[in-house]
């Protein structure tokens, strides 16, 4: 009973401290809130606002044999007399104008000069024999792609767009070649039919080229539930950040609350406690329970509040509970361990500024490196050298709906950390007050 009395007294003191409350709840929510609003624009409407790419086209194509294809499915295709015009018309189509700001140049030099002068980001130079080469089954129809080397996304979109279009067209040539190689002389009459059908199919696919390239816009979904989509994207961005902040400040709280042992020693209330008929074990247990319960209140409160504020989805209840137990045990025992190493509270500046920050940031590497391909794995491995890393891993496992066995395994690892910290910390404190 006295253990609980001591714990409740310590918790009362902790929660009466405005400083402690701000660091327990205010700062983690505030930090996450900053990220929430930072990424709010990206997620608004569920779309990314890619800037339009300035493309300048020098269409030098002089045409060739009559272009005998059904161009009704190609945007602007009906007006095209040459393959060059077909390419230009596709790039000028209504759907593509959101991505491409197209102008025409009279010659190749002007087009290249526009890129060199940074008036355009991409120059397309369609050669004079483009249609002729395209019509020749053995010819190579090539468009010169001249881009600003400092840019990647805009030119990349244009390149992908053209590649897809040209791939479709090249398929026609391959089909004709194969047919001519295999067909008997009497079947030559069928060649026109085959080519026509292949082109129809191929160009019909080409018609969908914008849609395929612009999948990220998901216009159908936008019509369904834009707000829901926005929340999903934000939640995916903010959830690991909130998890990381919660863990960082849970360890801060664990260390700060465990400091009450040293603080009471300096305030002389701890020696006075030792003059009451209360055993040393009871006094220390009460104080350690206070650390555990304070971190418990903090973690549970943040786990409940953050979904309400930020729409975070922590995952299955059991996985989250397992992760929370790991965080609470890890943060409490880490705090006890760290404080057992200190002589007095004057040394706490080093601990809060150094040890907690360094280990906390190491533990959160996996949160911030998650987006990078190689760095994510390396980051996670590095983060596991500190208990915060295991705590972060636990919450990410829950968020990513990993099998519960993995969550339990992670919790077990964190409990091993906790046990080591706890035993060393309690041993040192017992020895100190013996």
């Amino acid at each position: 009973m006295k253990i609980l009395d001591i714990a409740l007294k310590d918790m009362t003191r902790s929660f009466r401290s405005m400083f402690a409350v701000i660091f327990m709840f205010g700062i983690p929510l505030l930090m996450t809130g900053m990220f929430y609003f930072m990424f709010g624009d990206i997620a608004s409407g569920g779309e990314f606002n890619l800037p339009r790419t300035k493309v300048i086209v020098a269409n030098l194509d002089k045409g060739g044999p009559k272009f005998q294809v059904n161009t009704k499915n190609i945007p602007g295709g009906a007006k095209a007399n040459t393959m060059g015009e077909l390419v230009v018309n596709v790039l000028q189509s209504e759907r593509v104008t959101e991505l491409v700001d197209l102008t025409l140049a009279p010659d190749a030099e002007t087009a290249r000069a526009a890129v060199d002068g940074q008036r355009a980001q991409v120059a397309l130079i369609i050669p004079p024999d483009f249609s002729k080469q395209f019509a020749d089954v053995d010819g190579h129809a090539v468009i010169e792609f001249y881009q600003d080397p400092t840019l990647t996304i805009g030119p990349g979109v244009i390149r992908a767009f053209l590649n897809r279009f040209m791939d479709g067209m090249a398929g026609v040539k391959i089909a004709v070649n194969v047919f001519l190689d295999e067909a008997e002389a009497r079947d030559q009459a069928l060649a026109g039919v085959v080519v026509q059908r292949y082109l129809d199919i191929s160009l019909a696919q080409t018609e969908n080229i914008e849609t395929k390239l612009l999948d990220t816009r998901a216009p159908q979904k936008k019509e369904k539930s834009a707000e829901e989509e926005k929340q999903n994207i934000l939640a995916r961005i903010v959830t690991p950040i909130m998890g990381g902040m919660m863990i960082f400040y849970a360890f801060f709280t664990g260390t700060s609350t465990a400091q009450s042992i040293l603080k009471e020693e300096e305030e002389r209330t701890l020696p006075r406690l030792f003059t009451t008929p209360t055993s040393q074990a009871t006094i220390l247990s009460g104080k350690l329970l206070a650390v555990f319960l304070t971190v418990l209140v903090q973690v549970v409160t943040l786990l409940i509040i953050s979904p309400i504020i930020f729409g975070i989805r922590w995952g299955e209840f059991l996985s989250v509970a397992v992760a929370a137990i790991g965080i609470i045990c890890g943060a409490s025992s880490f705090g006890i361990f760290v404080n057992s190493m200190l002589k007095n509270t004057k040394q706490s500046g080093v601990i809060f500024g150094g040890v907690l920050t360094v280990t906390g940031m190491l533990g959160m590497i996996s949160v911030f490196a998650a987006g990078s391909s190689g760095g994510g794995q390396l980051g996670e491995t590095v983060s596991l050298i500190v208990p915060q890393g295991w705590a972060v891993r636990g919450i990410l496992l829950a968020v990513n709906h990993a099998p519960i066995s993995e969550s339990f395994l992670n919790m077990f690892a964190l409990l091993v950390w906790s046990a080591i910290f706890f035993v060393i910390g309690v041993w040192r404190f017992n020895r100190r007050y013996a």
Partner: protein
Amino acid sequence: MTTNHAIQVQNLQKTFGETQAVQGVSFEVQEGEIFSLLGPNGAGKTTTISMLCCLLRPDEGDALIMGHSIRHEAMGVKSVLGVVPQEIALYEDLTARENLDFWGKMYGLRGAALKTRVAEVLDIIGLSDRANERVGQYSGGMKRRVNIGVALLHKPKVIYMDEPTVGIDPQSRRNILDSVVALKQQGMTVLYTTHYMEEAQELSDHIAIMDHGKLIAGGTHAELVRIVGQMDRITLTVNVEAEKVVDAWRRVEGVKQVAADNGVITVLAEDSNRALPRLFDSANAHGARIASIDIQVPNLESVFLHLTGRALRD
């Protein structure tokens, strides 16, 4: 050891590194009396008290508190003991009532008994009307009162008060001294440590004088004063450095002891009327002028000076 002794101390010793803080201290305190440990700072009073309330384990010796050994029955000792530490040991972010409530629980009080006792103690220390204010907002004197109140919660048989009047205003000091007398009237045994001679003189039934970790004298006030006989205590200041005349005055006829502390010279003399003209002559001979004189009848200060050759330092 007889049963009407509240405290029996035998040969307590404690060493910290090279320093022998307490060297074989022995004394006895009768039930219901006020017993003062008097001595300058660093005399070993707090170390002795710390051993008696089981905060420090003695290297040698033992003590019985209401029959409980400090070596073998720490919980028994703590349950009959109330401790008022030298520093204010309270939770400043809790109210006075919350403080008393918490400390009461630590002494094993619960429920209605605790509530009643907290109200009684608040009444005793005169803070009932401000019980719900945080201790951090109290004046130094009010904090001292709560500090004492905590030690009274479980109605202890013995109460230790370790220099409870250090650093407080005269009015609060008066209140504390009155409360110590009141505790005695309620039948409590009080072990009081101080380096203020006049406090020990006013309060105590018995006094033990400590210096350098040893008890150098003990008894009632009258018994201790008899040690110095009927010598007068003369306190003087001179217009030059005190050291210039101290050696010369030690050789003056009728002077038994001379000590200087912070420019103030204390002289023990058999007859101040005869000694003073000689002290004036000696001062003149050394080019000094006596600036002030105060003559007192023998007291504990005189005793300490007589026993140690030094003044009790404030």
